[in-house]
C-alpha cells in the first residue's frame, strides 16, 4: 500500500520505468493497442517507446492511473517455517521492531506488532526512491502487513497479501532476516526441487482438484511453461518462458474436464521431452458445493523465481447470463476473493507436500530394495 506519493503529468523515461516496476505490462500494451500501436517486446523496452508518442493528456492520465493502480485483484504469498514449539510469536516479532536492514535496497523495518484474533500481525514499512523526482531525492513510503500463525505444533506460517512484487520481496526478506537471528530456515516451497515429471504432476493435481472439495477448477485459461533441466537447481535452468497458444490451452482444458491426465496431452509430452515444466496456471474456479453458485473466479497460481515465492492471485469474477452462453463480469468481492486465494494457497501446499512425501517414499523403497 502506497502511503505517500507525488504526481507529475508528463511521462519521462524514468517515470515510466518506476511505474512499470509494479504496473501491469499487459494493461499498458492494451492501452497502446487502442491507438493502433502494438508494441511487441519485453517490459524493458516500454519506457523508451512510450515517451515517443504525444497522444494527449487523457491518454497519459489513463496510462498513469493504470500503472499507479497497484491492485490487480487480491494476492497471497508467504512462507512456512519449523520453529521451536515454545516460541512466542508476539515476543519474537516485537524484538524485531525498528531493527533495520541497512544493506537492503528498500530499507525495510518492522514498525508495529500486535495480536489480532489468533494471529500476530507485523506492520512493515519500506521506502522507494522515486526516480521521477530524483533531483529532489523524493521517496515514497509503503506499508505492508504480515501475519504469523501456528499451523501445527512446530510449524508457523507467515503470510501477506501483497499489492506489488516489491511487497512480496520486502516481506520475504524481512521475515527471513528475522528468522535467521534464531537460526531458523523457511521450509522449501521450490518447484525446482521436484523432478520435472512431478512438477507437471503437481499442476495436474491442482487443476483436477480434490474430489468432494467445495472449490472446483472449471476452465483453464492460461499455462506458463518454463524450460529447465530434469535435475533440481535453478542455476541449470535456461530461464526461457513462453505462453501456450490459445488453441493449445483450450485443448488442455478439455483434457482436464474429461478427466484425462495433463501429461497425456501431446503438447505436454513434447514439452516434457524438451525438459519444459509448468510454472504457473490461470483458471476459472467456482464453488458449486455451497448453494449451487455458478459464479466463477479467475485464479492464478504462480511459482515465481524473483523473489522465489509462491503467489496465488484472484483477479476477476463473473456469473453466467440467463442464456448460459455468455458471462457477466462483476466487481470482485474482497471477502470471497480472500476465501478463494486462501483455499488454493492451502491446496497447493497440501499437494506440494504430498508430492515431496511420495518422492521420499519412493526413494526409501528403492533403498530398501537395494539393501541386501
Amino acid at each position, binding site marked *: 500500500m502506497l502511503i505517500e506519493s507525488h504526481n507529475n503529468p508528463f511521462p519521462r523515461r524514468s517515470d515510466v520505468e518506476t511505474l512499470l516496476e509494479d504496473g501491469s505490462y499487459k494493461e499498458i500494451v492494451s492501452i497502446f493497442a487502442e491507438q493502433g500501436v502494438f*508494441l511487441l517486446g519485453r517490459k524493458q523496452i516500454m519506457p523508451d*517507446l512510450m515517451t515517443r508518442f504525444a497522444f*494527449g493528456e*487523457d491518454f*497519459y492520465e489513463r496510462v498513469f492511473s493504470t500503472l499507479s493502480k497497484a491492485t490487480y485483484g487480491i494476492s497471497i504469498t508467504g512462507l512456512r517455517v519449523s520453529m521451536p514449539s515454545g516460541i512466542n510469536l508476539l515476543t519474537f516479532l516485537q524484538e524485531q521492531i525498528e531493527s533495520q536492514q541497512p544493506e537492503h535496497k528498500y530499507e525495510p523495518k518492522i514498525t508495529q506488532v500486535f495480536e489480532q484474533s489468533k494471529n500476530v500481525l507485523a506492520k512493515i514499512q519500506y521506502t522507494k526512491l522515486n526516480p521521477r523526482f530524483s533531483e529532489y531525492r523524493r521517496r515514497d513510503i509503503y506499508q505492508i502487513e504480515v501475519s504469523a500463525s501456528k499451523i501445527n505444533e512446530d510449524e508457523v506460517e507467515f503470510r501477506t497479501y501483497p499489492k506489488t512484487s516489491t511487497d512480496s520481496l520486502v516481506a520475504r526478506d524481512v521475515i527471513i532476516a528475522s528468522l535467521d537471528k534464531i537460526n531458523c530456515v523457511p521450509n522449501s516451497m521450490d518447484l525446482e526441487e521436484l523432478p520435472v515429471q512431478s512438477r507437471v504432476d503437481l499442476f495436474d493435481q491442482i487443476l483436477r482438484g480434490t474430489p468432494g472439495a467445495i472449490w472446483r477448477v472449471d476452465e483453464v485459461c492460461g499455462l506458463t511453461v518454463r524450460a529447465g533441466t530434469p535435475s533440481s537447481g535453478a542455476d541449470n535452468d535456461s530461464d526461457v518462458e513462453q505462453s501456450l497458444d490459445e488453441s493449445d490451452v483450450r485443448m488442455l482444458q478439455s483434457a482436464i474436464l474429461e478427466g484425462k491426465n495433463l501429461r497425456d496431452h501431446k503438447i505436454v509430452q513434447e514439452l516434457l521431452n524438451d525438459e519444459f515444466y509448468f510454472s504457473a496456471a490461470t483458471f476459472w474456479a467456482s464453488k458449486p458445493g455451497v448453494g449451487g453458485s455458478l459464479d466463477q473466479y479467475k485464479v492464478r497460481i504462480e511459482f515465481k523465481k524473483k523473489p522465489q515465492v509462491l503467489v496465488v492471485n484472484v483477479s476477476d469474477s463473473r456469473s453466467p447470463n440467463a442464456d448460459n452462453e455468455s458471462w457477466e463480469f462483476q466487481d470482485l468481492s474482497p471477502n470471497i476473493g480472500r476465501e478463494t486465494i486462501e483455499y488454493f494457497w492451502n491446496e497447493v501446499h497440501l499437494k506440494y507436500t504430498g508430492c515431496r512425501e511420495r518422492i521420499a517414499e519412493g526413494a526409501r523403497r528403492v533403498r530398501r530394495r537395494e539393501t541386501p
Partner: protein
Amino acid sequence: MPGEQSREGWANTSLFASLVENFDWVLRGPIDQNMDCEKCQPYANGKPRTHGVDAIFTFTCPYTRRTRAVIVDGKRYTFKSVGGPATIKSWLNDSTKTALHARDSINSLSAQRNLPNDTLIDTVMVVWDCHEGWDQAKSKEWIKGIRLGHTPVPALSVFLSTKEHLGRLQTLSQFRHTVHSLEFLYSPEKMPIWSKTLTPELLHSSILLIRYQKSDSQNKIMGVLYFDTETPSRIRFLVKYLGYAGLLTHDNITIHVQCPQNELEHFENYFSTEFASIENLHGIGISKFKFEKIVRAPFES
C-alpha cells in the same frame, strides 16, 4: 495476374510511398516483390520459400541514429468487407511474421533490396485505406480487443494505420509542399533533436512540434501541428506540452490546427481559456500565439 484487391493494395502502397518520401523515407526495391525466406524450410526441389512484401522503407531514426526498416503492408478494403477484429488481427499477425522472417533473411534481403549494413527491422505498418463505410467508433472497438502476444527480441512496433493516420499523413505532406523546409522536434525532455524525418511514432501522435521556413530567405518559425480538436483535455495537454518542450521561450509560435474553418475560432477561444489557467506558471502572454487552419486532406487522391 494480380486480382482486384491486390491491384488496389499496390496502388495504396504506391500512394503511401509517394507521401512518406517527403519525410526522408527511402523505398528499398520495388513495390510488391517477394522475399526469399531463409527461415522457412525450402521446397523439396531446393527453391526457397517466399513471402510477399508490399514495401520496405528505411530511414535514419532521430532517437537511435540507426537505420530503421519499416515493412509496409497495404490494404484497401471496405469497412463491411473487413467485418471484424479477426481480419485485422490476421493482417497484423501475418505482417509481424513476415517481419520476423525478414530479420532472419537479412542477408538475402539486403542483397535484393540494397539495405544499409546496420539496418534494424523493427517496425511493421499495416496501412488500411478504408475507402467505403468507415466507422471510427466501431474500428476503435475492434482494435481494442486485438492482442498479438509475441515477444520478439529486439522489440517490434506494429502499427495499424487507419484512415485517420493516412489523412494526417496526406495533410502533413500537403503542408510540407507549402513551406521551404520542415523539421520535427524529437526528445523534448532531453537535448532537443530537429529532424526532417517523420517517424511512425510521430505519425501516430496527435501533436507534432515543428519548425519551418516559408522561403529560403526567412528565419525559422516555431510551430505546432495539432490534429485533434475534439478532446478538450488534449488542448490542456498541448499548452503544457509546449512549455515542457521549451517552445514557450520563443517569440512567436504558430499553431496549425486541422479542423473545419468555423471551428478554428472555437478552438482559439478554448485554447485561450486553457492557457490563461496556467499562464501564471510560465509568466508569458497569449499574444505570442497565432492560429492557422490546415486543410484536412482525404487519403485517396
